[in-house]
């Protein structure tokens, strides 16, 4: 399989993730969709790394994985904190900081 198949698949997955962020309101599902987008980026990085024949793209993919893990930990911590304060778990209703 040549690399453009992987890149097209990765852009499709990215678009699906972006659509999910626009459609869904539950913060947990929004975080899941963020994961989808980060993984689509990972797939493109690894595909390009294979195409060029250079392993540095895979190192970038691992760093992206670390960033995603940090984002998940902070995001889920925020969700638990929101839940404990009895605030609505809805990204459209949590708008106190909005100008």
């Amino acid at each position, binding site marked *: 399989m040549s690399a453009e198949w992987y890149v097209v698949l990765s852009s*499709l997955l990215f678009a699906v993730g972006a659509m999910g962020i*626009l459609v869904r309101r539950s913060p947990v599902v929004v975080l899941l969709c963020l994961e989808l987008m980060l993984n689509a980026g990972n797939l493109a990085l690894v595909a390009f790394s294979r195409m060029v024949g250079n*392993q540095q793209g895979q190192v970038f993919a691992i760093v992206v994985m670390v960033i995603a893990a940090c984002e998940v930990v902070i995001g889920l911590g925020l969700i638990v904190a929101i839940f404990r304060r009895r605030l609505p778990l809805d990204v459209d209703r949590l708008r106190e900081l909005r100008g």
Partner: protein
Amino acid sequence: MEAILFFLAAIGALGGAVGVIALRNPFYGVLGLIVHLFSLAVLFLLLTAAFVAAAQVVVYAGAVMVLYVFVVAYVGGAEESAWESIPGQRFLAPLLGLALFVELAIAVLSSSLLALGTDGPHVRAGFGDPAAIGYLLLEKFLLPFEASSILLLLAAVGAIVLAGRQRAGVR
């Protein structure tokens, strides 16, 4: 053989992704993401990225998803309200997502990627195995490696501050 495996894994990845955004219960969404991650690991193996595939399965599907499952079980699968802050959001959002995909597809197809049309160079046997990646991480990318470890530590401390038990009287 490789093409069959690619299409099977692509269908799995896409099906998992659509499951995440379409299923109403967040718990099933997490399960869809697990399917998606395993399919992506297969794709990484096809791209001779063995270490990334292993890290994907162990770190993501193993550790991060367990965290998700626990949080979903803790907060419960709340129903999403029908209230919309932007009128017509339900119809506008898929259109915008489709527009994003068309845009990305145009960007890919109009680049010189198609002209290359390559399976990539023939790589030696150890391409992407843990030894090679570890060598790169500790030699060439030592600074990003240390920076990401500090970031992980900060995230762990932040999660404890955010979700830890609150002391009495402190909001």
